[in-house]
C-alpha cells in the first residue's frame, strides 16, 4: 500500500494501527462467558426461514400457481352459458311494446322540435327587416303619417 496522503505515508499509518491493535488484547472473562451461557440457556436457537431476498421468488411463484389453480377451478365449475341461435325469430309480442313506446314519445318530441325550429327559423331577420323599413320611411319627408306604406 503505497498511498500517500499529504506527506504522511499510509503504509506507516497502517503499520502503526496494526501494532497498536495487537497491544490491545482483551483478557478472556469467565464471568462474561458465564453470563452469556446463562442467557443462551434461557434463550432458544430458532431455525429461521431463509432470508427475504431468497424467499420472495418462491412466494411469487406460489402466488401465481395459486391464482392459476383458482382460475382453472372456477372455469371448470361454472355452468356453460347457453348459446343464442343465430336466426332466432323475435316474438310478435316484443313488437307491440316497441310500437307503443314509439307512439307515446313521438308526439312530445315532434312538438318540441317544431317550437325549436320556429324560434330559430328566421334568425331574427324578420325583426331586422322591419326596423330597416321603418328607417327608410322616416327618411321620406313628404309622406303623410297615415300613408298606406306605414309599417307597424
Amino acid at each position, binding site marked *: 500500500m503505497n498511498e500517500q496522503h499529504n506527506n504522511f505515508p499510509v503504509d506507516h499509518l*497502517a503499520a*502503526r494501527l496494526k501494532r497498536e*491493535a495487537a497491544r*490491545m488484547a482483551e483478557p478472556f472473562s469467565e464471568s462474561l462467558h458465564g453470563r*452469556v451461557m446463562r442467557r443462551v440457556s434461557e*434463550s432458544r436457537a430458532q431455525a*429461521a426461514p431463509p432470508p427475504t431476498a431468497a424467499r420472495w421468488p418462491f412466494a411469487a411463484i406460489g402466488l401465481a400457481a395459486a391464482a392459476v389453480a383458482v382460475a382453472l377451478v372456477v372455469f371448470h365449475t361454472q355452468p356453460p352459458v347457453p348459446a343464442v341461435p343465430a336466426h332466432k325469430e323475435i316474438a310478435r309480442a316484443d313488437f307491440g311494446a316497441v310500437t307503443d313506446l314509439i307512439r307515446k314519445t313521438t308526439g312530445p318530441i315532434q312538438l318540441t322540435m317544431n317550437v325549436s325550429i320556429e324560434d330559430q327559423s328566421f334568425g331574427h331577420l324578420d325583426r331586422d327587416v322591419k326596423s330597416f323599413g321603418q328607417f327608410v320611411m322616416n327618411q321620406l319627408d313628404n309622406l303623410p303619417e297615415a300613408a298606406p306604406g306605414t309599417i307597424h
Partner: protein
Amino acid sequence: MTDPPPQDDTTLARLALAGDRAAFGELARRYQSPLLRFARRSVGGDAEDVVQETFVKAFERLGQYRQKHAFKPWLFAIAYHETINHLRRRRVRTMETLTESEIDHDPADLAAAADEKTSLWSLAREILSDVQFAAVWLFYAEEMSIAEIARVQRRTSISVKVMLHRARATLARHLEATSFSDFGIPLPAGEL
C-alpha cells in the same frame, strides 16, 4: 490420549443449531476477546453488555447463518450493528440527561481521556464516524478482507474501499496537522 482436533467454526455453528450448547460455548470462547476488543474501542465501558447481547442474538439467529460464508464476519456483523445501535441510544440519553458541566468535568472521563491520549486508535475513534471507525478496525485489527467488511456493514466492496481511503486520508491529514506531542506520540522523523 490426545485431544480431538479443534472443530472449525462452521461445524460448531451447525452443532449449536442442532441444540449442542457446548458447541456454542466453544464459539463464544473463541470470539469473546476479539469482540470485546472491538466493542471496547467502539463503545467503551459498555463493551461487555454489547458482547453479551451479540452472543445471545447470534445464538438466536444461528438459523440465518449461511455456511458458505465464514462465521467470523457473520458474528462481527451482529456486533457491529449492536455497537451502532448502542452508540445511537447513548447519544440520545446523553442529550436528554447530562448537562454540559457533567460531561466536561467528570473526573473519571478526564482520567480515561488522559490515558487514551497516546493511542492512534483513540484519535481514530475521535475523528472518524462510527461506520468509518468500524471499517478501519475490521481491516487493520481483525485483518478482514474488503468483501468481508462489506458483508459486515451491508455495503458494496467499492463503498468500503472508498470509505477506507477517506478514513485513512482523514487520519493522515489530522496527524500531519496536529503536533504529535499533543498526542504523546514522538514524531519519528525518519519514518515520516
